[in-house]
């Protein structure tokens, strides 16, 4: 078990290096291929009236004139031991782990990420609780009453939920629940849970529900399919033959088997979400990691995007690791291998 964990952690580090290389290349190598010179890249980070000489000086200062692998090496070194960035007027130190240094804002990215993470975490965790409860219970009921009115209705709504984009459902929800009926917060607000838990939940309620709607739909469909499969298994017949209550048969024997595949999907979804719920955060004006990346894109501030991407990748990888470990807890057949 310990050896397995060590192996997985080493693989995780390797994976993160690959992700960082790919991301770095997308932002720093591809523009070069597309014909952008070091000066054009640097021109984003100087004033509009700057002379060509100033732009070139900035490009050299920021290292854009170096080959891309040298730039990557400098960035990677920053992650491990920290790096000094020459801002002309002053030299700013970016302490390790330096996930990136915003050229536009002239400050390290990491403090921003740490600052914004609670918003995204709050959003993701709250939504996950709702969607797991909703999705699984609707899925189970649908499977048990297969072909009934409830099943058809639930599956139609679920189909809508899967198909409708969140920037649409988000805006519709805001229009009605917040602006028209005044039931929920109007968005854009976030109160830390440590400050006022009630306010925290109130501010996030609508984003939670909107985001959970999308995922509940998907989880309801998956749970339904899984339940239909497990309820046909021989061990369900055995459970009934023992004289167990139908509720025990469904929950203890049926659902337990159906939940395993759901765990995998949940790990991926949740990991991806805590790395930034881009659409939900944008729709509701929440300053989380996703919004931070979007702002980075608008401002052409590449290190910000790079930072969020890496953090997101880290979360996905960790979530997957946790899921794999949980698998061993859930399914005894996995444990012995």
């Amino acid at each position, binding site marked *: 078990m310990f050896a397995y964990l060590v192996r997985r952690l080493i693989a995780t580090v390797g994976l993160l290096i690959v992700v960082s290389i790919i991301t770095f290349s997308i932002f720093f190598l591809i523009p070069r291929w597309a014909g952008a010179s070091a000066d054009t890249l640097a021109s984003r980070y100087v004033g509009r009236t700057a002379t060509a000489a100033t732009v070139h000086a900035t490009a050299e200062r920021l290292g854009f004139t170096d080959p891309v692998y040298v730039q990557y090496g400098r960035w990677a070194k920053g992650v491990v031991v920290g790096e000094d960035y020459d801002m002309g007027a002053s030299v700013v130190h970016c302490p390790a782990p330096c996930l990136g240094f915003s050229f536009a804002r002239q400050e390290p990215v990491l403090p921003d990420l740490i600052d914004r993470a609670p918003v995204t975490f709050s959003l993701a965790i709250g939504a996950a609780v709702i969607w797991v409860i909703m999705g699984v219970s609707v899925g189970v009921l649908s499977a048990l009453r297969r072909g009934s009115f409830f099943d058809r209705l639930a599956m139609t709504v679920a189909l809508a939920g899967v198909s409708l984009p969140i920037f649409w459902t988000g805006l519709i929800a805001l229009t009605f629940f917040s602006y028209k009926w005044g039931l929920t917060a109007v968005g854009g607000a976030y109160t830390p849970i440590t400050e006022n838990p009630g306010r925290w939940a109130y501010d996030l309620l609508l984003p939670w529900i909107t985001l959970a709607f999308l995922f509940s739909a998907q989880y309801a469909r998956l749970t339904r399919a899984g339940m239909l499969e497990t309820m046909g298994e021989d*061990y369900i017949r*055995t459970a009934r033959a023992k004289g167990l209550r139908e509720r025990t048969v469904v929950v203890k024997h049926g659902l337990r088997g159906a939940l395993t595949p759901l765990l995998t999907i949940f790990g991926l979804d949740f990991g991806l979400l805590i790395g930034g719920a881009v659409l939900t955060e944008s729709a509701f004006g929440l300053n989380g990691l996703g919004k931070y990346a979007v702002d980075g894109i608008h401002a052409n501030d590449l290190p910000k995007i790079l930072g969020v991407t890496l953090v997101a990748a880290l979360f996905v990888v960790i979530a997957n690791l946790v899921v794999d470990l949980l698998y061993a807890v859930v399914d005894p057949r996995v444990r012995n291998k």
Partner: protein
Amino acid sequence: MTATVSATGSAPAPQRGPFLDVQDLKVHFPTDDGLVKSVDGLSFHVERGRTLGIVGESGSGKSVTSMSVMGLHKEGGARLSGRILLDGQDLLEANPEEVRLLRGKKMAMIFQDPLSAMHPYYTVGNQIIEAYRVHNRVTEKQAREHAIEMLHRVGIPEPRNRVDAYPHQFSGGMRQRAMIAMALSCDPDLLIADEPTTALDVTVQAQILDLIRDLQREFHSAVIIITHDLGVVAETADDIMVMYAGRGVEYGAAEDIFNEPQHPYTWGLLGSMPRLDRERSERLQPIKGTPPSLIDVPVGCAFRPRCTFEHNTGGRARTERPDLMDSGHGHFVACHMRQEQREQLWRDEIQPKL
């Protein structure tokens, strides 16, 4: 063979009748393609301490019968009629909750494939404990001791360690033993074994059958063994019911069925058992054709299209469904041929070839 077997099921239930008395059971499933008559007028009974073997091909209605007795047929899907009297109580009239409380306690079941019949996520002990605690108000600890005791009784070595193992950590034979331990944990009066040895190694099959027989003596329960393998019932059954297309075609004491079978289908089944002491070409004499569709059972005798003796019935097999009739001393046969004719055919033509 004390009580009468009625093909019509019109006879009133005896007050103190057989322990399990099935009368004119019909199980029909309406489907989009038509009405599937899985069981169509079946009657039999089993006493405590006796074993009934139900024999037939796939799709003859054996398993549907056992599921109906257990009350495990698909809810809403099946149409059941007739009577299933367990210790005098009609299970078809009882409400589902009453039947649930009987399941596991008064009647228990062993299934064909113990690997898929046990939940892969729970330990063997956990599953036995669960079966015991549904019907007994005992602590977890007492139930665990009971589970270990049951595992010991079905011959699982080191039960104290094995109780915490998962089904996949058991061998096929051990799993079936554990399954039996689970079924017997509440000391049921009726045990239904649906193809208990089919999924097992040949060498293990005999051990499991021995075990079932020994435990039956110990628990003095009524046992129904459902199988397609006459070899299995030959070793275990007191009485045998041969089923074809949802009906009984021959029913009687095991020695009668084996020594003087009277139905051409039973002859076919006997001929389908490979004999290594014969010439290679004569070792196996399979029954021609395939079992009929249960949506479209042949008019008259359901076995007629596959029967080589149809010409002996004077055309009645084509129009009239034969009833299960007593041919004397409780040996019931559903065939249009005259009894002397059947006996003669068996003596002169069939037996010498087997």
